């Protein structure tokens, strides 16, 4: 990786970054703003009049293919009357990021307060929409376990590299602004438009390398020298600024999400019709759909089921759903439109319109086997092994890994409620332990072999939902396969201390017992002292990388005996379904008729030969 220095902010000298294309794309959209804004006002007017009598009226006014009004929102910042590059408060010089943030907050004086209540700050999500929300413990990154970097409580110092504080911290109390000292807020983490600030900030902040990198890279780390230039560059969030964290979630580019990776910084329309630059795409940024109210973003994998439609027309608030813009009957312009619309009460939009994930250059991780951690290279140092395509198959710090590109999502019934396990959750006693994959069954990332090998593995996270539930839809998910450490006695999902100065940290001495003991202590969980490993699975939501309409799944993809839904029961699916007894009975009748006819014909021929008599003799 090459050094990233302050010159990068010198517009004349710097080489074009991928993010620049995003900025240029937004600039190109400007001519459309006038018309778009007019449309927006018109639509709001209609909406205001209509909202009183009928919410449906407001929805239809923002209905299908109405990209222009929504587009206006994506460039609302570009329409701003404030040019931050000219503010004297941002002229600098600044010695540190903290000074930049103080300058920001000198005008935006409620910014910190707004952020303190957001999921981006608290990493905690209290479900409010669920009827039994009181019974549900808070979700969110602070609380849940997963099959990637396992869980945060034991690794706050490493994980908070990605926190909007812009600085790492160890104390869980700092997530809670209501009592005691809270973590700071770093405006630049989201509002520096190239995302390079955040990348550089990770590195300068002393993030553990293995959190994002599978192998040790040579060369300089990115760094920031001119805080004033950074400060003057601020603006609305961009694909690149959001992507600095979200495209690299849980261990590097595209590792966690097949549908969110750095390919989306400047995607072609074939990869994402919404985020590709106009005119091929709609030129959306993340916040076009993930609209904000007081810094709170709409759209979270913890809330909003696929059936919640379309309570939030895009123009009157939170938007992050397909129906918000496209309505629940979006196919009116298609040839078989009515028949396609008929699917929306059972099939989520994403199922057909995101035919595969990780369709660009970046692959996504499908296997993470922690049980093989710790094999050192010949030089007694951590090492990485790669396959012939250059993909990492083993890393000393992480174990056996496999990734795949152009992955077909798995289709499941979902009501939108993610059932998420936590560190300390006890897996069923029947779960086979110490069943590492050793990489042998899954060489080369064979997804079918992986799915078969993990067919009985319990879920650390999966969607609630069933065919019989009217609120459930068929949705696409990425299924992650992991072999994770558990307490050998209680079968509880283990918290692990990955990094830090302590000799107990996994990445320092590769001693599982010590790393889990420290991790469980940090997470306030009991530990027997013995570590085992268990295969687990996890569903990762798929909502991005919407393909152009002509690349959506066709009828035959599912309406076939061995189609994509062959293994997902429920619903009436002509081509796959039919009462089995009826088919048997029907085919039996056909066979019987045919047999009778043939027997009759043979008898006629036979008698004709032996009798050799014409009729009526």
């Amino acid at each position, binding site marked *: 990786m090459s050094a990233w220095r302050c010159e990068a902010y010198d517009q004349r000298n710097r080489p074009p970054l991928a993010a620049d294309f995003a900025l240029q794309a937004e600039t190109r959209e400007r001519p459309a703003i006038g018309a778009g804004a007019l449309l927006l006002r018109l639509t709001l007017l209609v909406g205001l009049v209509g909202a009183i009598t009928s919410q449906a009226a407001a929805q239809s006014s923002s209905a299908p293919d109405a990209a222009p009004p929504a587009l206006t929102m994506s460039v609302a910042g570009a329409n701003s009357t404030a040019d931050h590059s000219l503010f004297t408060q941002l002229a600098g010089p600044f010695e540190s990021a903290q000074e930049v943030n103080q300058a920001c907050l000198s005008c935006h004086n409620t910014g910190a307060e707004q952020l303190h209540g957001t999921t981006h700050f608290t990493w905690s999500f209290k479900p409010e929409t669920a009827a039994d929300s009181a019974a549900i413990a808070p979700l969110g990154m602070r609380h849940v376990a997963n099959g990637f970097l396992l869980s945060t409580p034991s690794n706050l110092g490493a994980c908070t590299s990605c926190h909007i504080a812009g600085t790492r911290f160890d104390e869980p109390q700092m997530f809670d602004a209501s009592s005691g000292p809270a973590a700071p807020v770093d405006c630049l983490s989201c509002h520096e438009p190239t995302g390079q600030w955040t990348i550089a900030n990770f590195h300068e902040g002393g993030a553990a390398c293995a959190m994002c990198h599978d192998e040790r890279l040579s060369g300089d780390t990115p760094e920031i020298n001119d805080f004033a230039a950074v400060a003057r560059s601020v603006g609305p969030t961009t694909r690149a600024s959001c992507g600095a964290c979200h495209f690299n979630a849980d261990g590097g580019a595209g590792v966690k999400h097949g549908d969110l990776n750095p390919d989306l910084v400047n995607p072609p329309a074939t990869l994402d019709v919404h985020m590709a630059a106009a005119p091929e795409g709609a030129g959306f940024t993340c916040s076009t759909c993930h609209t904000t109210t007081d810094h709170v973003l709409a759209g979270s994998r913890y809330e909003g089921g696929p059936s919640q439609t379309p309570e939030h027309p895009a123009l009157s608030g939170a938007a992050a759903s397909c129906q918000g813009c496209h309505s629940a009957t979006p196919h009116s312009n298609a040839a078989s439109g009515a028949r396609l619309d008929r699917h929306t009460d059972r099939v989520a939009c994403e199922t057909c319109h995101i035919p595969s994930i990780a369709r660009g250059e970046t692959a996504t991780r499908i296997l993470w086997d922690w049980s093989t951690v710790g094999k050192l290279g010949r030089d007694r140092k951590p090492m990485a092994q790669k396959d012939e395509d250059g993909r990492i198959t083993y890393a000393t710090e992480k174990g056996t890994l496999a990734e795949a590109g152009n992955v077909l999502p798995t289709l499941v019934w979902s009501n939108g409620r993610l059932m998420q396990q936590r560190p300390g959750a006890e897996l069923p006693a029947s779960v086979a332990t110490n069943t590492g994959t050793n990489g042998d069954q899954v060489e080369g990332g064979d997804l079918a072999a992986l799915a078969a090998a993990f067919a009985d593995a319990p879920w650390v996270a999966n969607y609630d939902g069933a065919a019989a539930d009217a609120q459930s839809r068929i949705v696409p998910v990425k299924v992650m396969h992991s072999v994770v450490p558990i307490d050998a006695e209680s079968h509880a999902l283990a918290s692990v201390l990955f990094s830090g100065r302590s000799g107990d940290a996994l990445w320092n001495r590769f001693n599982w017992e010590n790393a889990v003991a420290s991790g469980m202590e940090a997470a306030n969980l009991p530990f027997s002292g013995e570590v085992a490993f268990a295969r687990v699975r996890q569903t990762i939501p798929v909502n991005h990388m919407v393909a152009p309409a002509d690349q959506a799944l066709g009828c*035959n993809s599912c309406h076939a005996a061995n189609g994509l839904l062959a293994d997902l029961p429920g619903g009436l699916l*002509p081509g796959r379904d039919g009462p089995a007894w009826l088919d048997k009975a029907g085919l039996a009748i056909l066979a019987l008729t045919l047999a009778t006819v043939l027997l009759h014909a043979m008898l006629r021929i036979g008698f004709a030969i032996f009798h050799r008599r*014409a009729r009526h003799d």
Partner: protein
Amino acid sequence: MTEIARPKPRGIYLFTAFERFWHWFQAVLIIFLLVSGFEIHGFYSLLGFERAVNLHVLAAFTLLVLWMFAIFWHFVTGQWRHYVPSTHQMWATILFYTFGIFFGAPHPFRPTTKRKHNPLQAMAYFGFKVAMAPAAWISGLLLWGYGMFPDLYPGDLPVLWVNAMHIAAAFLIAAFLIAHLYLITTGETVTAQLRAMITGWDAFGGEEKD
């Protein structure tokens, strides 16, 4: 072939032009509906699901229009009487098909313009017209409406049952087709009945009895 009484060299004119047009157009449509229908049901892949569905619907509505004309024709011309079930000569016909046919016995029934079909035939066609065909088109229309006009679909009617009825009707019609194709070879000669349905003239038709 032994000479039998032939009142006219060409026999009798049994099937009028419209009747033959109706029969053959209906035959083509029903065979196509069976082929495309069983593809939609998932037995094989031939046209592709979407095209199979679209053409199936098109053929089905064409057949409904044809049937409307045919029903009108039947009532206007009084030809519906041919399909009224009758037990007259029933046993004789059954015995012919189970025994007599093998030993060269004469068919107990001879078609006339007053009664074109033997009792078994009339019963089978009657069953097709009042049971199999309506089961297919009523359930088919419901399924079509379920897809195209969900608001009009009766909510408490399980679509899986409607689908099952449609499939059951299709199997029965397919069985009917197999039997029909074989039984037309049981005329006076193997091709006599086929020729009658093509030309309209039945060489072995009986004289008017009244």
